[in-house]
């Protein structure tokens, strides 16, 4: 029996996927603005941000309605709570793209500091994490979610590398400080995008297995969110 | 061609109404007929004096007494036996082949013509047990006759008591007997009373079985071993032997009125009982 309620859950998944695709494009474009110095993509990022905000409100309303009207339990309850959390993370990681674009705008006013190596790689990883964490969420794929958690470490390492490199630039040449700081911030935003994706993956594990893996909470509680 | 529902509805109302009117008219006609013929002959003297000259003159007091005593005796014997049997069959046994055979047997018994009971009573009580024609022989015979009715109606009444009442009682720690006493019988009472009324009605109106077992003596009975004549027997003899049509109708009228009174009394008692329990 295909249930009406299940159709609503399917719709919820679909909207989350759409939102994550949107966020992914935003990250790609924001990085394009930084790396390729492409100014043309910037208005699109702002536009998408508004759309994402809109979708966030809609998804929250859907979650609220499903909880109020259907009083879900067990797996369904965890899924809807998870969806609401993933929704918030997606919105925040979309916001990070806006932050990146803002840095890009001030970077574009000056010549490039150095050829890009690490930031494109970080962007690749972050985008992949966003895509895969959402895939894992909607497809209840715990293995993929765990794998995303591991990728976050690589992102953190890269951020350390670039911080070190940029610190060298700044100590050597005071004229580079402004640009280096901007780039440092971009790396920090990418790292945060990774963190949001990590959170989504943790939510996925909770939704599927009912275990909270945040802060090693699984030793304390089996079923607390 | 189909008749429109509007007309079938009207036709139905007419036919059903006519059937009801016909039934009521027949009933009323019989009662009015008997009462109009009989009432003029009824007065204090008729009711409370002894008959004279085989009933051609005088009253019907001894038959009145017989009519009260005989069914009373029959019910006094049949009620505990019948209700007891019904309780046992419904509450204490599970439905088996035996209970089915028993039920079938009682149903058959209820349908047997009363003359057969009369013959049996005559042979068994009057002749074999040498009790002679007397109140007791008649009472016992009538008791056997009305027993199936009382068993059956009581059984139905007991069965109609919601099982949930029993469960509640058991779940509050009552034994089966406590449950029967406090819950089952009080709630089955209206049905049991109906059975008893049917039994009384049947024994008041009975003639064949009574003539064979209680006799037809026109005296006041002094003990259970005296022969008695009931009103219906009296009426039967008066009418059949052409003794006095006038007295026969008067007797019939008294008979109808007493049946009416007995019924009224029983129902008012029952209603008072129910009202007291469901205030």
């Amino acid at each position, binding site marked *: *029996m295909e249930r*009406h309620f299940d159709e609503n859950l399917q719709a919820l998944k679909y909207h989350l996927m759409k939102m994550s695709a949107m966020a992914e494009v935003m990250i790609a474009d924001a990085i394009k603005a930084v790396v390729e110095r492409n100014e043309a993509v910037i208005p699109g990022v702002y536009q998408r941000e508004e759309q994402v905000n809109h979708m966030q409100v809609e998804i929250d309303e859907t979650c*609220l*309605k499903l909880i*109020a*009207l*259907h*009083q879900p339990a067990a797996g369904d309850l965890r899924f809807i709570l998870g969806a609401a959390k993933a929704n918030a993370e997606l919105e925040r990681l979309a916001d990070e793209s806006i932050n990146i674009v803002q840095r890009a705008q001030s970077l574009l006013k000056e010549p490039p500091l150095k050829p890009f190596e690490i930031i494109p790689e970080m962007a690749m990883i972050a985008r992949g994490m966003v895509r895969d964490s959402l895939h894992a969420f909607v497809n209840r794929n715990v293995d993929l979610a765990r794998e995303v958690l591991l990728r976050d470490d690589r992102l953190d390492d890269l951020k350390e590398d670039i911080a070190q490199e940029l610190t060298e630039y700044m100590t050597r040449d005071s004229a580079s400080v402004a640009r280096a700081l901007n780039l440092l911030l971009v790396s920090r935003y990418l790292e945060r995008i990774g963190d949001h994706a990590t959170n989504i993956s943790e939510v996925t594990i909770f939704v599927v297995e009912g275990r909270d893996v945040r802060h090693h909470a699984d030793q304390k509680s089996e079923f607390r969110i | 061609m*189909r008749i429109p*529902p509007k007309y079938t509805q009207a036709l139905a109302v007419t036919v059903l109404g006519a059937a009801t009117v016909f039934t009521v008219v027949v009933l009323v006609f019989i009662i009015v007929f008997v009462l109009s013929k009989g009432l003029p002959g009824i007065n204090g003297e008729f009711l409370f004096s002894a008959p004279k000259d085989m009933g051609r003159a005088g009253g019907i007091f001894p038959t009145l007494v017989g009519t009260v005593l005989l069914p009373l005796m029959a019910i006094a014997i049949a009620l505990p036996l019948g209700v007891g049997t019904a309780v046992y069959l419904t509450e204490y046994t599970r439905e088996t082949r035996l209970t089915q055979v028993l039920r079938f047997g009682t149903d058959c018994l209820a349908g047997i013509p009363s003359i057969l009971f009369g013959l049996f009573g005559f042979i068994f009580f009057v002749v074999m047990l040498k009790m002679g024609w007397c109140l007791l022989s008649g009472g016992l015979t009538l008791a056997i006759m009305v027993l199936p009715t009382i068993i059956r109606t009581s059984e139905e009444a007991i069965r109609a008591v919601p099982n949930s009442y029993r469960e509640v009682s058991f779940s509050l720690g009552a034994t089966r007997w406590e449950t029967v006493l406090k819950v089952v019988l009080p709630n089955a009472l209206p049905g049991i009373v109906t059975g008893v009324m049917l039994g009384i009605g049947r024994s008041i109106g009975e003639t064949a079985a009574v003539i064979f077992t209680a006799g037809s003596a026109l005296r006041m009975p002094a003990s259970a071993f005296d022969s008695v004549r009931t009103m219906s027997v009296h009426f039967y003899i008066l009418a059949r032997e052409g003794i006095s049509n006038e007295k026969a109708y008067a007797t019939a009228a008294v008979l109808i009125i007493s049946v009416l009174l007995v019924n009224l009394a029983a129902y008012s008692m029952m209603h008072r009982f129910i009202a007291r329990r469901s205030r």
Partner: protein
Amino acid sequence: MSTDPVISVSALDLYYGEFHALKQVPMEVKGRHITALIGPSGCGKSTLLRTLNRMNDLITGVRVSGSILLEGRDIYAPGTDVCLLRKRVGMVFQRPNPFPLSIYDNVAFGLRVAGLRDGHAVEEIVERSLKAAWLWDQLKDKLNQSALELPLDQQQRLCVARLLAVEPEVILMDEPCSALDPIATARIEELMLDLKAKYTIVIVTHNMQQAARISDYSGYMLLGEMIEFGATAGIFTSPKDKRTQDYVSGRYG
């Protein structure tokens, strides 16, 4: 089209003898939607439901004033054909009540009453109705079996099929799931969601969650009054009246 109210109740008062059971009740039933009536026992929701096909006529001492328009025509106007009204506005009761007949004869009952003699046509309609009530696949091989032998939820769906056979426009349901277990309840609810594509449904339920799950519009009634009526999502997420708020959030008394 479908958003026009099929039934429009306004200022409806109903008395049982001296008792004022419905007080100036308004209600708009939208076509091809599910409208749910909720409220505590004795609030008048069943009474309101039963005015919609004049089932209350069967009770002596009932007086009704105000208006109930079915597609614009007052169903309490003199000269209204009550039998026709009840064909257009069918009813499903609290306890499944199939006739002690075969499954087939139960569904064909209304058709035969209506005078349909063509065996072929009857067969077709029986099949269509059973399909619409999601019973055809399970029952097609035992149409001659007694309806009383079916499990309760199938009996209830059979009652729905029996109703669908006479092609009503509106289906009234008076706590159709209160005798059923959750699984059976879910089946009936899914059936209702399916049926609303073709029919207008008004349901009375004790079960608030049920109203929340399936209805598009809800009315909360209390002591014969319509306290709040509106879109279900609104009633259950942000009710306007404090009393509605208390009731749907389980704070009563």
